[in-house]
């Protein structure tokens, strides 16, 4: 996948797929319209390269680049012993207490089961694990008192260690259990930015709170945080659960005196309050409330700009005067699914229904996800955008294409972007997307239009990319940078509503 990313940047390459002749890879090749009878005949022992290009020499360039990248990879791998089976991995690290699994979904559950049977906790990053397997794994984990974070769990921080896509957040006394990866990233990062810290961030995978799964991992996670002497405040993050699960989860919170902030994204805040918990209104508000509780301060709603309010409102009005006749729409181009979902929620509260590939109402579902209309918010991490490519937090090429496409739409005024940094993410996501922003702006200017970019960076100064450095780079390049997703959406909305 990482190799694919480097190859996609070769000029003249429209699509490229590199891999072994497995059924999955062949299916991906078919989806990219690159299937040939020769590829059809390949076996899992065959290595192949499929390129969509108009020039023969581009193909040759790809082949030599693959050679170079693979030999580089082989060199870097020779230093460490890499066991081929799970048993030999346990022999190599006998006191291993966590297995991170990101193998294809069809194999992942069996591997997770092996780990649980050895008494080892599991972070299951893989998706496409059947729900029956998830239930089986979680029941087994519950019996054994172990974690199964996932399937499809992108984020966790255990004992201060970020796993997969997660941020370097200071240690503190706030414990998080969440069914949403980027939701955990935004809340934990804001907690960190506010100078507080976390004990654990336990991911459950997005389906945990479905009636069939029963919230097994969320409930076990809550109980563990309740018993944890270092955790003083508990935070829950999820889309609204099935009703009976919601009741179970909220009742579990009442089993201890530790205060809790519950954010059921898009759900009714009164539900959590009825169980004596604090209701988080946005991911940012959830973080602020948790920090207030941790410090023994008064808990208030944070649903506005947290700094420079008047200046921002003035800036929005001034900026809006720069748009040309007909420029009126917002396009939110997200790499984080929950962040996109939250953007749609906040816009809706402001009276704007956004079209999307993950709409709040079915009538706002885009017929063609590659054709935005009116105000649109896209989750570019969804399958339709990632076939044969790494996630947009790693590979920004699809997002850059969409930015350039939106810039050509004469009705577009504002482009809103999330930059998710931290471990797992691209080490120079800002640097890689910036040329796309500059090109888009230049294109619009040539056409006599002004394009405004609004962004926020989800991460901390301790992350390898450094939050402050990312924010400064964006600001220096004329991007409005807000401190959170919620505020970036609100600022974008102010821009749009200021258009006369």
């Amino acid at each position: 996948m990482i190799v694919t990313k480097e190859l996609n940047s070769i000029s003249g390459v429209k699509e490229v797929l590199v891999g072994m002749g497995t059924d999955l890879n062949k299916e991906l090749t078919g989806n990219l319209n690159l299937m040939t009878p020769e590829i059809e005949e390949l076996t899992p022992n065959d290595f192949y390269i499929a390129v969509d290009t108009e020039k023969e020499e581009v193909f040759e360039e790809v082949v030599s680049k693959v050679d170079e990248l693979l030999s580089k990879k082989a060199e870097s791998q020779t230093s460490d012993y890499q066991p081929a089976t799970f048993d030999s991995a346990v022999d190599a690290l006998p006191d291993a207490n966590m297995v991170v699994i990101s193998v294809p979904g069809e194999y992942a559950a069996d591997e997770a089961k092996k780990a649980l049977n050895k008494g080892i906790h599991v972070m299951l990053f893989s998706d496409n694990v059947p729900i029956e397997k998830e239930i089986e794994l979680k029941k087994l984990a519950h019996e054994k008192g172990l974690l199964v974070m996932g399937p499809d769990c992108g984020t966790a921080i255990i004992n201060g260690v970020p796993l997969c896509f997660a941020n370097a957040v200071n240690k503190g006394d706030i414990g998080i259990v969440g069914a949403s990866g980027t939701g955990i990233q935004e809340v934990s990062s804001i907690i960190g930015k506010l100078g507080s810290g976390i004990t654990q961030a336990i991911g459950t995978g997005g389906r945990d709170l479905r009636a069939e799964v029963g919230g097994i991992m969320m409930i076990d996670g809550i109980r563990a945080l309740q018993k944890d002497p270092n955790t003083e405040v508990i935070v829950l993050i999820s889309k609204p659960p099935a009703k009976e699960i919601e009741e179970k989860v909220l009742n579990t919170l009442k089993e201890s005196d530790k205060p809790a902030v519950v954010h059921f994204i898009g759900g009714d805040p009164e539900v959590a309050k009825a169980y004596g918990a604090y209701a988080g209104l946005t991911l940012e508000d959830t973080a602020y409330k948790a920090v207030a509780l941790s410090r023994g301060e008064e808990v208030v709603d944070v649903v506005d700009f947290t700094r420079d309010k008047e200046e921002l409102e003035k800036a929005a009005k001034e900026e809006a005067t720069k748009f040309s006749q007909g420029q009126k729409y917002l396009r939110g181009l997200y790499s984080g699914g929950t962040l996109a979902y939250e953007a749609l929620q906040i816009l809706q509260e402001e009276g704007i229904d956004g079209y999307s590939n993950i709409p709040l109402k079915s009538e706002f579902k885009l017929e063609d996800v590659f054709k935005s209309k009116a105000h649109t918010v896209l989750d570019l991490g969804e399958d339709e955008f990632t076939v044969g490519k790494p996630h947009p937090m790693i590979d920004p090429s699809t997002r850059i294409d969409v930015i350039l496409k939106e810039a050509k739409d004469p009705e577009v005024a504002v482009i809103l972007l999330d930059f998710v940094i931290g471990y797992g993410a691209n080490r120079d996501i800002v640097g890689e997307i910036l040329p796309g922003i500059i090109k888009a702006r230049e294109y619009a200017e040539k056409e006599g239009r002004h394009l405004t970019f609004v962004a926020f960076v989800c991460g901390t100064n301790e992350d390898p990319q450094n939050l402050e450095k990312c924010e400064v780079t964006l600001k220096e390049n004329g991007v409005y940078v807000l401190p959170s997703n919620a505020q970036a959406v609100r600022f974008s909305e102010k821009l749009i509503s200021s258009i006369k």
Partner: protein
Amino acid sequence: MSNINELFGKELKVINMGLDSFGDDLKEQNIKTVQMRWRPPAGGSKKMMSLLSKLK
């Protein structure tokens, strides 16, 4: 005490099965990590896997 609470007090030691980059990130933070050279069972052939599962 549940095994989850026991884990909270311990040094994290990780077996990474799958994407190398997740293991590399951990090694960069000096976390004890074993990277597996994972290959699909039966070489990734669905037909062979189904045959093998019948043998078990």
